[in-house]
């Protein structure tokens, strides 16, 4: 809208106001406002197109597309696997504890009852018949103790092995943290590019890390990983191990 045109409109508006012509005044005001709005829309439209172009140009040759398409869904599955692993470890530990507590309680009760009898025997307050039955109880207690202690040992080993989750989940979480960091950098880059499309640079690919723990359903899709110890053994024996 040229200045002359706006000046003409303004003059017409002053005349209409002086004449007290309400209808003409409204019409002219609408006209002025309408021109202003359409200019604004045009500018917003231009900005939107610029932003869109910057984003499209950026995502074509950067990691952000692959991140949103692959890495983020992968990260979700990885974290889900962390939940599964920690849950398994917690259950394995709790199962062992729940199994062992009654074992320990029974042994304790037996020992307590026997020690009471033993005291009476030492104080020579025990008739021979009762001594004979106590001897049998002691023999039974010894054999039960041995079985129970083997059970305790096995349970403690189960608890020990359950703690392996900390290593695996730690490695997985560390990788997801790295991904979040990468994503953050890419977002910063995106914002920078959106602000100044001319400074477009290609994102530098990060040095590939060690692949780390295999998350089922994420890392074993291509078939280039050993999914269990048997796979490892087969591969090694095929190499002459």
């Amino acid at each position, binding site marked *: 809208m040229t200045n002359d045109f706006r000046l003409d409109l303004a003059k017409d508006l002053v005349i209409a106001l002086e004449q007290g012509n309400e209808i003409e005044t409204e019409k002219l005001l609408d006209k002025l406002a309408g021109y202003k709005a359409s200019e604004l829309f045009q500018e917003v439209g231009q900005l939107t197109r610029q932003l869109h172009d910057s984003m499209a140009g950026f995502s074509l040759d950067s990691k952000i597309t692959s991140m949103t398409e692959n890495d983020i869904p992968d990260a979700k599955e990885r974290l889900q696997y962390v939940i599964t*692993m920690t849950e398994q470890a917690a259950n394995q530990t709790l199962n062992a504890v729940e199994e062992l507590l009654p074992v320990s309680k029974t042994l304790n009760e037996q020992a307590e009852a026997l020690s009471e009898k033993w005291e009476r025997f030492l104080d020579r307050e025990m008739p021979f018949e009762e001594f004979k039955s106590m001897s049998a109880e002691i023999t039974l207690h010894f054999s039960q103790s041995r079985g129970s202690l083997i059970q305790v040992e096995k349970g403690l*080993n189960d608890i*020990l*092995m359950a*703690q*392996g*989750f*900390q*290593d*695996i989940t*730690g*490695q997985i979480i560390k990788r997801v943290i790295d991904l979040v960091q990468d994503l953050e950098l890419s977002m910063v880059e995106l914002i920078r590019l959106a602000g100044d499309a001319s400074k477009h640079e290609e994102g530098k690919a990060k040095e590939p890390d*060690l*692949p*780390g*723990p*295999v998350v089922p359903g994420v890392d074993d899709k291509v078939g*280039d*990983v*050993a*999914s*269990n*110890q048997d*796979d*490892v053994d087969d*591969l*090694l024996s095929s*190499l002459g*191990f």
Partner: protein
Amino acid sequence: MKILVVDDFSTMRRIVKNLLRDLGFTNTVEADDGKTALPILEAGGIDFLVTDWNMPGMTGIDLLKAVRANPDLVDLPVLMVTAEAKREQIIMAAQAGVNGYVIKPFTAATLKEKIEKVFERIDG
């Protein structure tokens, strides 16, 4: 029999140490990566090395290569216990001269079997 256990996660070192004790190996030393492990190995007296792969500083595979490159350590039995499960990595470890390869998570029985196998091969 003195065993060096190398892993950057202390929980895993404790697990391996406990399992080894259960198998009758009570004399163990720990290190948290290849860099700290190598001087211990070079100082002598270690009969068996159990190492993780992915560690900061110096990885297990580099430690294995350094061990095999050292005339004093060239015959040291090395068991790798790692979460790295890519076929190419297992092959790489085999080529670097590893004596056994266990992937995490593992069972007590697996570790026992692999350790026994390593010693069988050495004794036989």
